[in-house]
């Protein structure tokens, strides 16, 4: 199997003058074009802007003043606002929306010299686990185009897996970075809630949403996250905690690190062959000097039902802003104001978004608020307390990212609960606001499996360190699909 070039390699080659940004960007644009009909990873390609940025990056590099990501081709999930380039959120509602400003994440990556090639496909409003809810059509998995790439950041994961970009921004509300990363055989990190600014990141569930990155390796993730992370006065939930140099001490030995193996993640729903990949990874950590112990978090099995109260409740509130008046889709010839609201929203939103808005409205409505919404918030505290107890005794928790490898397109579309249960191992980290990663750890019948690593609040460096040490010993993350693009 061929190997995937890494962002770290490109950064080194660009600095050494072995390759120019214009060359890299031109090659990436050609790959995107060649892949689009097959993978549908992009919603918008910004070729002219990218070439102009690449020329500027080459001038900066020649003058020795390029930023840490100068000249490197990346792309953004299409829910990060980009001034002058449409931001659709995968929805008909925002099909023609052009944000008047850049998201903080976009501005920081641009300031670091990264070249944006375009906007990546995603589940509509980030609500989905298969990228099938996008108004712009499903993304396909580069490893097998009959399979989904995962979601909601399906375009981000597929683009990195197919080598279309060296890294992609993504967001994770219930697993939307980790699940697609695992399905596509790439590395993804969801940071601690509050670590990366949500300013200009279109809101789905505000107490759960967190921006992060998908790339080819933990080291690549560390480079990009180091630029994205940090305090932002424009996001009131951004946390003012210093960002360490994530590249620092990545190579340090792992000896003595305490790893908790999450018992509840090895449930009967876990595919036995997938489990073997994860157990092999754990054994490798043990050989690297980690101490393993089994850890039980008894409230974890309630994560999915708790999430499907909290997330839809927040979604129904956040999506109330789409009223057909100030921006977004508007129906033709409304009879009156109520007709304007109802038809604009009904035409603009797809079925899954409507389902979540309705679920959220139901659990927040009079007579149900205590029974569902407050109850779910209490369960959320129990789940968080489980993690706090665990992190008193271990440094990291590990388990599978998903119960199975990528499923077939259409396989879970008939029943929403079946689809929701695909996120059974990822959702708890969002409820507790914890940083979590997915790292490629093997293959089952040609499809990638992912090892999930969860850490305490603001322990991104520890996660990246463990993942990097693992990747020094394995080559799962370097494998690329046969036909690529």
């Amino acid at each position: 199997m061929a190997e995937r070039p890494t962002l770290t390699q490109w950064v080194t080659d660009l600095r050494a003058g072995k390759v120019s940004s214009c060359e890299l960007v031109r090659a990436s644009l050609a790959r995107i074009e060649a892949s689009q009909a097959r993978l549908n990873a992009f919603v918008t390609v910004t070729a002219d802007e990218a070439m102009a940025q690449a020329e500027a990056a080459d001038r900066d590099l020649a003058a020795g003043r390029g930023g840490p990501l100068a000249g490197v081709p990346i792309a953004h999930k299409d829910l990060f606002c980009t001034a002058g380039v449409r931001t659709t959120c995968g929805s008909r509602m925002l099909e023609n929306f052009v944000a008047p400003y850049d998201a903080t994440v976009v501005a920081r990556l641009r300031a670091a010299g990264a070249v944006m090639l375009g906007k990546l496909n995603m589940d509509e409003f980030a609500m989905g686990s298969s990228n099938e809810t996008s108004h712009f059509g499903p993304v396909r998995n580069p490893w097998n185009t009959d399979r989904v790439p995962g979601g909601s950041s399906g375009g981000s994961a597929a683009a990195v897996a197919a080598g279309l970009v060296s890294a992609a921004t993504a967001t994770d509300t219930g697993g939307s970075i980790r699940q697609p990363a695992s399905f596509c055989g790439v590395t993804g990190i969801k940071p601690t809630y509050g670590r990366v600014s949500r300013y200009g990141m279109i809101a789905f569930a505000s107490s759960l949403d967190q921006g992060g990155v998908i790339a080819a390796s933990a080291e690549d993730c560390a480079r990009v996250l180091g630029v994205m992370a940090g305090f932002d006065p424009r996001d009131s939930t951004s946390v003012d905690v210093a960002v360490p140099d994530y590249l620092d001490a990545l190579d340090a030995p792992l000896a003595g690190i305490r790893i908790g193996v999450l018992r509840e993640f090895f449930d009967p729903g876990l595919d036995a062959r997938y489990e073997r990949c994860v157990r092999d990874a754990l054994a490798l950590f043990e050989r690297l000097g980690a101490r393993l112990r089994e850890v039980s978090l008894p409230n974890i099995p309630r994560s999915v039902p708790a999430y499907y109260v909290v997330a839809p409740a927040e979604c129904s509130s956040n999506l109330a802003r789409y009223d057909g008046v100030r921006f977004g889709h508007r129906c033709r010839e409304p009879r009156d104001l109520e007709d304007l609201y109802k038809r604009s929203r009904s035409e603009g939103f797809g079925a899954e978004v409507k389902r979540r808005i309705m679920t959220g409205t139901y659990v927040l409505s009079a007579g149900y608020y205590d029974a569902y919404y407050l109850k779910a918030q209490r369960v959320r505290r129990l789940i968080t307390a489980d993690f706090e107890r665990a992190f008193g005794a271990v440094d990291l928790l590990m388990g599978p990212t998903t119960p199975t490898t990528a499923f077939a397109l259409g396989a879970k579309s008939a029943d929403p609960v079946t689809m929701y249960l695909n996120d059974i191992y990822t959702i708890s980290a969002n409820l507790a606001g914890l940083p979590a990663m997915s790292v490629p750890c093997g293959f089952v019948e040609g499809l990638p499996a992912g090892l999930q690593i969860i850490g305490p609040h603001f322990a991104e460096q520890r996660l990246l360190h463990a993942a990097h040490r693992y990747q020094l010993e394995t080559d799962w993350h370097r494998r690329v699909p046969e036909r690529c693009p």
Partner: protein
Amino acid sequence: MPLTRAQVERIAHLCRLELDPAEIPQFEHSLSRIIEFIGELDRADTAGVLPMAHPLPGLLQRLRPDAVTEQDEHALLQQNAPAVAAGLYLVPKVIE
């Protein structure tokens, strides 16, 4: 207990959604499934547990200084509006 068609229509109205009559049975079914599924929470013992609204416990919501930070950008912002005239957003007549 499964939701009735009337309940689904009532919820849709609260959401300001107009469902196609043909798609209502599908929403009846899927929403009933979801509500049955989240009903599992009822079995959790949460006596004495406080609701948790924010994932970073103990963190206070920051306030910003009471100072003007935004400029008047209505012309720029209204480029995204479906209907404007004289700097105003247009909606169907509300008051007779």
